[in-house]
C-alpha cells in the first residue's frame, strides 16, 4: 500500500487533472468488458503497462505488485471454471473445451480490468479525487471523512509500527501466546490513542477556526481537453485494433 501511495504522489502525471486519467481508464475498462478478451485483454494490459512506464514514469514493478494479489486469486479461482461436474456416467470431473475457454477469458478479462483500476490508483492520489467526488454529488461530510481517514491511517500505521517494535524489543512476540497477548495490548492502546488523537486534533482545528466544515483549497489542475482527447483516441484505437485482431484470429 505504501508503494502505491508513493507512486500516486510522485508520478509524472500527478499534476494532471484527474478526469484526464479517469475517462481513458474507464474507456479501457469498458473495452475489456465488451470486446472478446483474448485480443483485448493483452492489448489493454500492454497499453496500461506502457503508458505507466513511459508516460507517468511508474515502473512496471509497481504495476506487477498491484496485480499480484488479484492474479494469485485468479490463478486459484479460474481453473474451477474449466472443470465441470458431470453425473451422466457416474459422478466425475470433466475438462471441456468451453470450460477451458471460459477460464482463460475470465482470467484475462479480470486481470485487464484490474490493471485499468491499477492505472488510476498508481497515478492519482486519493486527495485529488475529492473535488470529483464532490461534483459527483457525494455529500461533503462523507468526502471529508474519507480524506480524514486517509490522513489518519498513516498516523496510526506509524504508531502501530513503533508500538510493535517496542514490544518486539521486550520479547513480546517470543512465544505464540505472548504474541497474541501483545497484539491485544497494542490494539487496546491504539484505540485509546485514537480517542486522544481525535480530541487533540479537535483542539488543533479549533485554533484555526474550525466550525464544522473541513474546507481546503482544491488542487490547481486545469483540464487539458487536448490530452483528454488524445487519451480517448488511444482508447478508440485499441478498440479498433482489438476488433480487427479478433476477426483475423477467428
Amino acid at each position, binding site marked *: 500500500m505504501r508503494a502505491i501511495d508513493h507512486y500516486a504522489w510522485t508520478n509524472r502525471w500527478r499534476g494532471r487533472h484527474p478526469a484526464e486519467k479517469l475517462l481513458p481508464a474507464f474507456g479501457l475498462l469498458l473495452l475489456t468488458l465488451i470486446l472478446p478478451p483474448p485480443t483485448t485483454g493483452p492489448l489493454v494490459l500492454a497499453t496500461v503497462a506502457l503508458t505507466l512506464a513511459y508516460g507517468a514514469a511508474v515502473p512496471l514493478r509497481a504495476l506487477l505488485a498491484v496485480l499480484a494479489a488479484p492474479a494469485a486469486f485468479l490463478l486459484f479461482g479460474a481453473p474451477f471454471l474449466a472443470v465441470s461436474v458431470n453425473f451422466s456416467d457416474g459422478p466425475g470431473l470433466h475438462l471441456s473445451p468451453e470450460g477451458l475457454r471460459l477460464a482463460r477469458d475470465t482470467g484475462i478479462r479480470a486481470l485487464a480490468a484490474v490493471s485499468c483500476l491499477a492505472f488510476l490508483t498508481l497515478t492519482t*492520489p486519493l486527495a485529488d479525487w475529492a473535488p470529483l467526488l464532490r461534483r459527483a454529488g457525494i455529500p461533503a461530510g462523507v468526502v471529508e471523512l474519507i480524506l480524514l481517514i486517509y490522513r489518519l491511517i498513516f498516523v496510526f500505521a506509524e504508531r502501530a509500527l513503533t508500538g510493535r517494535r517496542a514490544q518486539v524489543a521486550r520479547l513480546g512476540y517470543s512465544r505464540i501466546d505472548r504474541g497474541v497477548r501483545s497484539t491485544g495490548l497494542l490494539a487496546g492502546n491504539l484505540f485509546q490513542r485514537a480517542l486522544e488523537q481525535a480530541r487533540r486534533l479537535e483542539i488543533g482545528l479549533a485554533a484555526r*477556526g*474550525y466550525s464544522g466544515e*473541513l474546507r481546503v483549497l482544491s488542487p490547481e489542475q486545469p483540464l487539458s481537453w487536448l490530452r483528454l482527447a488524445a487519451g480517448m483516441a488511444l482508447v478508440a484505437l485499441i478498440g479498433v485494433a482489438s476488433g480487427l485482431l479478433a476477426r483475423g484470429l477467428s
Partner: protein
Amino acid sequence: MTGSLLAVRGLEYVYPGGVVALRGLDLNIEHGRKLAILGPNGSGKTTLLLHLNGTFQPTGGEILLDGRPAGYDRRSLNQWRRRVGLVLQEPDDQLFAATVEQDVSFGPLNLGLSEAETRKRVGEALEALRIAPLAARATHTLSFGQKKRVAIAGILAMRPEILVLDEPTAGLDPHGVTHLLGALQQLHETGTTLVFSTHDAELAYAWADRVAVFHDGMVLCQGETAAVLGDREVMRRARLRPPLLLELAQLLGESETGGERRSLPRSREALLARLRERLATADGRDGPVSAHRPRRAAE
C-alpha cells in the same frame, strides 16, 4: 500594563478529573515582545497556552484581551482565535489535510477569505517558513521538522497578532532549531508578538526578551530575560538550571563594567568572541596566562 495585548489574571484551572493544573497565575503579554514561558515538564505550560486562545475556559480568574475580559461565545472565540494563533507541540495533532497546501489553506478559508486571497496567503506562509517547495507534497511523507513548520505555516496564514507556540523546538535537531528560529525572528521583525513555552533555559536566554518562570501551576517570576534567568533562587525553586551562557558571561565579569547588562553575550558565537577578546587582552597585560604558547612555538 498599558502595552498588554493579552493578560492573564489570577488564572486557575482544575481538570475535570480534579487535578489542579493552574493555581492563580498572572501573566502579561506585551505587544511586539518575545515571551518565553519557561518551566519543567508537567508544570502546566501547555494548559496555560490552551487558555490563551480560549480552548480551555478557566475555572477561576480571567483572561483580558486589550484590557477587556474575553468572551467564550462562538463569535468572541472566532475573533479571539483570529488574533491569537496557537501551534500545538505535536504537528500530527494539527495537520489533517492530504497535502501541505491544502492544510495551510484551512485557516484562511475559515476566516472567510476568497480562494485567490487564500492562495496568496498560503504562498506567503510557506515562503516565510522556507518550505514553499513542499506545497504539493503529501502531509504524511514529511519529516518531523517539516511537519512542524507546516503546522506553524497553517497558523501563520491566518496572520495572527500573537503567535503562541508550544515547545516549538522539541524534537528538532540543531539545524532544524536554527532554521525555525530564523523564520520566527523574521516574523517577529514584521510585528508579530511571540509567546513560546520551553523547558530549555538556554533557548529562552538566547531568544526571548521576556521570560516567565513557571512552576507547579504558578508564575514564580516574570521580567527581562537576563534578570530572571540570573536569579538563582527563582531558578532553583523552579527546578531549572541557569543557562550556561549566562553563567559564563557573568563569570567573565561583564557586570563590573557597570550598566552594561544588555551587552551580555546571548549566543555561543558572541560568548566565544568575547572570551577570545578577553584572553587576548589578558595576554598583553600579564604574560603568564597564555604566554607559554608562543614561547613553545619558538622552541
